[in-house]
């Protein structure tokens, strides 16, 4: 098996793993469909934007939860936005944590919220690593003259 074929196989295995583990769902495939010759870096751009935006949102959530009197509505607003963005890139696990997070916000449960915040941070970190791995793999395939397989 030549290098390109080997990397393509790795790509298939890795994307399958990411989907099975729930890191990515079908929406990520939808995202890839929007990438073409006119917009060759679209997915990477969106993902970068997502992580930039999420860092800001997570900081806002953390700060809001540190206040003496916590404004749960404000926290909820951040989580709502974060959940929306996560859904756009197919980040299923993140999206699910956000659902729990919003429930704790509604119940004004500080401990629950803090737990969710930690979970979100961990999931975000894990997803970032996974996507970086995936993109690196794709770069290798392209650099070796191969084409990135179509998702799904």
């Amino acid at each position, binding site marked *: 098996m030549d290098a390109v074929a080997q990397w393509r196989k790795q790509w298939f295995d890795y994307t399958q793993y990411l989907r099975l583990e729930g890191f990515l769902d079908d*929406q990520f495939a*939808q*995202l890839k*469909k*929007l990438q*073409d010759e006119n*917009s060759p870096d*679209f997915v990477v*751009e*969106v993902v970068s*934007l*997502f992580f930039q*935006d999420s860092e800001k949102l997570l900081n806002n959530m953390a700060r809001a939860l540190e206040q003496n009197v916590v404004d749960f509505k404000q926290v909820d607003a951040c989580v*709502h*936005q974060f*959940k*929306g*963005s996560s*859904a*756009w890139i197919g980040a299923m696990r993140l999206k699910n944590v956000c659902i729990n997070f919003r429930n704790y916000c509604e119940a004004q449960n500080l401990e629950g919220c803090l737990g969710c915040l930690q979970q979100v941070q961990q999931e975000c970190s894990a997803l970032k690593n996974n996507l970086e791995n995936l993109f690196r793999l794709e770069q290798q395939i392209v650099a070796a003259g191969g084409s990135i397989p179509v998702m799904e």
Partner: protein
Amino acid sequence: MGVGAAEAQFHVLAVDDSIIDRKLIERLLKTSSYQVTAVDSGSKALEFLGLNDQDDQGTIAEAPSVSLNNQHQDVDVNLIITDYCMPGMTGYDLLKKIKESKFLKDIPVVIMSSENEPSRINRCLEEGAEEFFLKPVKLSDVHKLRPHMMKGTSMEDEADIKGVEEIQSPEKTRTQYNGFDVVS
């Protein structure tokens, strides 16, 4: 661009406060060959459309020879797609303002939301929204926009004629079969 690309490109105004959503919507629309203008608030959308926030529409109505195409920005928008949840002016507020405006009310409006709330959906549709899309919006959703954009263009007349022909042909078949000349 497919057959009949002689028509001008349709122009969509996208409204969403989230930068990621704007980027995605813009890409979805451009992939479907629409020209896109994306703004981050309802008030910016109204500004773009030539309608100010504190607008007294009575004044515009009184102004002589003012039509949508003659407004100072000479804007030609075929469809507005807006997020529901936005700070300040919500998508629903924006929808209302558009439908209340003499000059903008015929522009089709589509609402997007990440929340699947039947009461919200109904409220928007009742206020005159053409469609309600759940986020994340898919390419298949964007395909649903075309018929709405065809309204109010010469395409509509063509479609109307075709519709009439279709209604008439069964009659013709029937009359031929019966051998009578039925005047409908």
